[in-house]
């Protein structure tokens, strides 16, 4: 269960956005895939981004960062770094099984080691992402394709929300509970990538709250964001209605962009109406896997019988790790990308 986005930004350079674990190999999917391509992760991965701290976006991120020895680490500036570390250290001490605190604690150790070896913080991170900040610039004259990476969120107005979230997380941890997800996710990092003449918009889990200066509303209304429209769009928050921003389609995206989304089975996202809505905007909608096809493991008859008697209704949350890959020439805005769908990934619109 989870998502990970890899973007080749030209000249063999990569960025990794979020992470999840491949259920077959038990390894981070980014390392699996890049390894299969023969990419030297240690030198060719330039950026590792944690868009936010939900489990389905960060499992395996520390291992990925450790392998990406040349990469800067990026996370959301909405969380005060000191407060965030307090939550991480307390959570990791009291509930070491929690994915989020364990991953971030491991990431902090990696950053500490690298700074201890003399590497500068600007090169190592954490780089705190916020609206309209340039995170990476690969524009040297020797490159055939230049690349820039910007964060479009979080907006200034959500910092108080982050403080409240961390306070609630601390309270939960002190009561020996895992912090729960609450409210719209306005703290995550949306990325805008310009690679050659192509733009890519990675929506993380950012949600849309109309009439506010938060979330997608803040991005659309910003006069400082990079110009242009994206041809490739990672749909936010698993296609949910509360992350749908109509103005994004008119202001941020080309007509009929290529759209990718990942399911989140605990909330049964995307729903059928979400797919219908997306298909109404573009026929190029790709879902990495179909939760309806996830299968429960077969267990001992006594266990199966007990589950039936208890009316427990178990539901598998993970299936095969689906993969959508789009390859396009960054020097051409019109060339049709080469599409690859693997392990249950599907095009959605008829």
């Amino acid at each position, binding site marked *: 269960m989870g998502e990970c986005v890899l973007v080749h930004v030209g000249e063999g350079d990569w960025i990794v956005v979020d992470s999840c674990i491949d259920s077959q190999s038990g390894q981070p999917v980014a390392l699996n895939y890049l390894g299969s391509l023969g990419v030297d992760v240690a030198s060719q991965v330039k950026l590792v981004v944690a868009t936010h701290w939900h489990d389905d976006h960060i499992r395996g991120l520390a291992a990925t960062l450790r392998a990406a020895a040349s990469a800067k680490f990026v996370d959301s500036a909405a969380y005060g770094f000191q407060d965030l570390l307090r939550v991480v250290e307390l959570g990791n001490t009291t509930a070491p099984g929690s994915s989020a605190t364990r991953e971030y604690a491991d990431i902090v150790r990696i950053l500490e080691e690298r700074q201890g070896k003399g590497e500068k913080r600007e090169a190592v991170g954490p780089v705190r992402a916020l609206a309209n900040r340039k995170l990476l610039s690969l524009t040297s004259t020797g490159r055939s394709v230049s690349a820039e990476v910007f964060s479009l969120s979080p907006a200034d107005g959500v910092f108080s929300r982050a403080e409240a979230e961390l306070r609630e997380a601390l309270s939960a941890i002190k009561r*020996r509970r895992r912090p729960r997800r609450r409210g719209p996710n306005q703290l995550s990092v949306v990325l805008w990538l310009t690679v050659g003449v192509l733009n890519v918009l990675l929506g993380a889990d950012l949600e849309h709250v109309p009439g506010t200066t938060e979330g997608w509303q803040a991005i659309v209304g910003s006069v400082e964001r990079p110009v242009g429209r994206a041809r490739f769009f990672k749909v936010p928050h698993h296609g949910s209605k509360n992350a749908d921003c109509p103005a994004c389609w008119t202001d941020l995206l080309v007509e009929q962009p290529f759209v990718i989304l990942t399911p989140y089975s*605990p909330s049964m996202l995307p729903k059928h109406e979400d797919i219908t809505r997306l298909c109404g905007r573009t026929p190029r909608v790709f879902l990495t896997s179909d939760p309806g096809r996830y299968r429960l493991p077969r267990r001992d008859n006594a266990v199966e019988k007990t589950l039936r008697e208890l009316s427990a209704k178990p539901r598998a949350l993970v299936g095969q790790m689906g993969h959508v890959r789009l390859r396009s020439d960054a020097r051409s805005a019109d060339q049709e990308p080469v599409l690859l769908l693997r392990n249950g990934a599907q095009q959605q619109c008829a």
Partner: protein
Amino acid sequence: MLTSTSVRDPVAALGSREVGVLFPAFEKEFLVRHPLIAMKTRFGLNTDEDTKSSPQGQRAPSEDILVRLPSLRKSKWKVKVLQRWIGEVEQVKAERFVAMLVDATNSRNPPEQVELDLEEVSESDLPLLAEGATFYWSIGYRDTPGGQRQRISTIRFARHPRLKEADVQQIFSQADLLAAYLQK
């Protein structure tokens, strides 16, 4: 000579004349009923002359025999766990709760979501049932000393010692030092 009420070692109590055990499976462990010979004598059915002349035959026909029960430490209860999960409560409804399960029997199995009745939680654990709480769920068999097999499902919520404020402040101090180092 035996008194009217005697405590005996159960194994020694069993002899060729004492066949009053009605639960053969417990034969070697304990004797819970009157020995048959005493019953026969009581009802005038005992015609065994050896019995009448032997010390055992001269004791009162209604004599009870108490036997020593096996200690709990030597209990023959056996539990066979077939499936174990570590669960985390996601939502508590009026009569059920929703949880995410991680398979602790086979870590390669995917996480699952499940809905369970609140009645499956013991009364002593109910105060611990809340969003974010961790529990352990086992399904398996329990074999009683009597040889009966029962299928069991057990849910137990994690109990953690309370955090002392001094410990929390110490952890915060360490975190603050680390934050300052990484941000310098």
